């Protein structure tokens, strides 16, 4: 039972990986997930978060099986 994590663009490069996974029991919110994967260093300012491909704020609750993603501001188009 776990939470899957994805990183994109500059954040992916900073983390040194595109994906991660943590035990669902370790985190209640998106911010908690970040704390676990980043050893309690703060989330870079402007970081965007999503759960299951929907934008959410860092205080949004996570649950077992969720896909949480962290990425910098988007620059498409």
């Amino acid at each position, binding site marked *: 039972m776990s939470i899957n994590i994805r990183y*994109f663009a*500059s954040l992916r490069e900073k983390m040194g990986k595109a994906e991660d996974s943590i035990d669902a029991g370790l985190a209640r919110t998106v911010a908690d997930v970040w704390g676990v994967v980043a050893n309690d260093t703060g989330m870079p300012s402007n970081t965007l978060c*999503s759960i299951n491909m929907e934008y959410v704020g860092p205080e949004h609750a996570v649950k077992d099986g969720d896909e949480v993603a962290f990425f*910098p501001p*988007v*620059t*498409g188009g």
Partner: protein
Amino acid sequence: MAVSITEKPFNPWDELQTRQDNLSMAGQYGATAVFVGTMRDFNEGDKVKAMTLEHYPGMTEKYLEKIILQAERQWELMHTLVIHRVGHILPDESIVLVAVWAAHRANAFDASRYIMEELKSHAPFWKKETLEDGDRWVGKGSEG
């Protein structure tokens, strides 16, 4: 609506021709508004040799469809087409195509611009430029 994300170069005018040939609404639309974004060889004072466009497969398509649905709720539209390139891109290649077919021009103009602005500010794409002396991620607030 039609949304596609493609790693292959596309010709926007061919895509518009093909799409329009397949619309079963000849004589009904009076207005088509189109935007094409093309890769420039120069950005923020530097020569750009190439670009790599990263996206979040699944979320990108979902988000583009959401933007189009929002546009369809605000304006009376007959058809919408969005094509976005990802992967390795060279100068002068098309990056994005947004096209809206409507009965009347105000709706087509408003909706095409809305879709393009929402895409730029929310759809999960990220540009990395290859300069003469290395790579850099494109920052927010680039003029586009």
